[in-house]
């Protein structure tokens, strides 16, 4: 058997599944977003759904909220993750146990973390009770709204909680592979601790941080269950709005849901492009 045939046979099952399920799903979504559905007799594609979606101020607010959540969560997670990795790369007693605890919530599904954040930060949650016990508030309603709030603080807290170990584990592995030699050289040449970090270590780990951050951004931009549980009812994030529009009793709204899905996909396509650029930069470095 030639190598060529062998490669085709080895890849055939995976490619079939990806082309049918992933590309097929996307393609049908795109067709429906153009009002093109031969099955029910719609054979004239048009841009009505996009016009409706893009001119709707509610969709714009959803987009801005979703972007705010994804961007803020990613930046805060990346900064804390780098600090955590700097801390955890040192040798200290009980390091294995601490590493285990650091990685623990990587395996915890988002929805469980979201419920946990709800029980901690809601107006009758653990921190509100603490505030009452030390006399800061007299009633639950006096506790600041940190979940179901317009700034999506609860959602961001959940993502930061979940994504710090994700980026942190990747950065930590990178730092351990690099060792401390480069920084030692910089220090012996007169750099202070901050300079050794900012001018030597940070540029070395940056490609890894960037590619991990891109995955986090794309995920938080498209995630559904966390904003569903912790978000305000208005405005909703783009994925929540798309799902709600899709399952609306009014079937005529479905092309609009598809148009929103296409917008989400295009934005994540941009993310893939950025991701590939970041990983390519890493290969070159």
């Amino acid at each position, binding site marked *: 058997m030639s190598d060529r045939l062998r490669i085709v046979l080895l890849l055939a099952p995976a490619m079939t599944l990806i082309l049918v399920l992933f*590309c097929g799903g996307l393609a049908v979504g795109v067709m429906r977003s153009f009002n093109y559905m031969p099955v029910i007799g719609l054979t004239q594609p048009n841009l009505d759904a996009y016009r409706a979606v893009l001119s709707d101020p509610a969709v714009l607010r959803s987009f801005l909220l979703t972007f705010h959540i994804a961007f803020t969560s990613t930046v805060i997670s990346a900064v804390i993750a780098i600090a955590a990795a700097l801390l955890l790369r040192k040798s200290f007693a009980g390091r294995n146990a601490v590493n285990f605890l650091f990685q623990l919530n990587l*395996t915890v599904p988002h929805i*469980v973390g979201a419920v946990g954040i709800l029980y901690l930060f809601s107006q009758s949650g653990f921190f509100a009770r603490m505030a009452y016990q030390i006399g800061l508030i007299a009633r639950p309603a006096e506790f600041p709204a940190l979940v179901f709030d317009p700034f999506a603080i609860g959602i961001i807290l959940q993502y930061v909680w979940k994504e710090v170990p994700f980026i942190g584990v990747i950065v930590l592995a990178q730092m351990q592979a690099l060792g401390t030699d480069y920084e030692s050289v910089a220090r012996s040449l007169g750099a202070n601790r901050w300079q050794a970090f900012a001018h030597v270590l940070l540029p070395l780990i940056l490609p890894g941080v960037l590619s991990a951050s891109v995955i986090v951004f794309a995920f938080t931009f498209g995630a559904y269950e966390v904003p569903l549980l912790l978000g305000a009812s208005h405005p909703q994030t783009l994925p929540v709005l798309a799902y709600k529009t899709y399952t609306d009793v009014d079937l005529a709204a479905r092309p609009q849901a598809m148009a929103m899905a296409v917008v989400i996909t295009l934005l994540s396509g941009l993310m893939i492009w950025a991701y590939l650029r970041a990983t390519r930069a890493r290969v070159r470095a």
Partner: protein
Amino acid sequence: MTRPSPLSRSLLVLSGVMLIVWLILPLVPLLIWSFARGWRFPDLLPQQWSWQAWEYALSARSGVVESLGVTVLIATLATALSILVGVPAGRALGLYRFRGKGLVELLILAPVIVPGIAVALGLHGVFIQLGLTNTLAGVVLVHLVPTLPYMTLVMAGIYANYDPAFEQQARSLGASPLQTFIHVTLPAIMPGIIVGGLFAFLVSWSQYVLTLLIGGGRVITLPLLLFNFASAGRNDITGAIGIIYILPGILILLFTARHLSGANGAVGGFGRT
């Protein structure tokens, strides 16, 4: 390097402790709620403790045990299919250079980044035509979209460090292709199958919106049940389901930390669900 002063040393320890506490903290109320009998504002701890939530969760009428079975079944099937399909694909990507490899890698990686909801809305229409909506088979199939990339990428990594010459030697010594696979190839790639399989299992285990949409409320996995009890305000039962739901992941992490040390970089993928 210079030795840090005692003050900066204790600051470092303090920030480390705060980091770990913050990472564990959201799980604590779930555990407490599951043993609480009413836990009203402003009590920091429940006035009364009880097994009620656990008794209810483990009884037949709550549907938790049935849902646990469904979740295990779906994750196991999705994992098995991912192994069957992902191992050959990983072999092609790890062992060979060929034209269009970049495109194949992009196609395999894309489902990790493109949000599930964008794929699922389109796929829902196709699955209606095929009669796969509201069925377990449909949910297993849609779970393959996020699980297959992890399995394939892990196997591609394994095969990149694998020497196929051993297979030729086994063949030239008279082993059949099946014998060669079982006695030569399989032992060499087993660590990848275990790590990739555990990945795939956890990724399927964590799915929410794909199950909700394709399962149409007929296929009820643990996260769907958890969400229902959480939005109904049954915090005690939500707590019990939450603890049951996170246990397999923690056991898998313990197992991989003990048996597959050095696989830390790969464990990073657990977060992507």
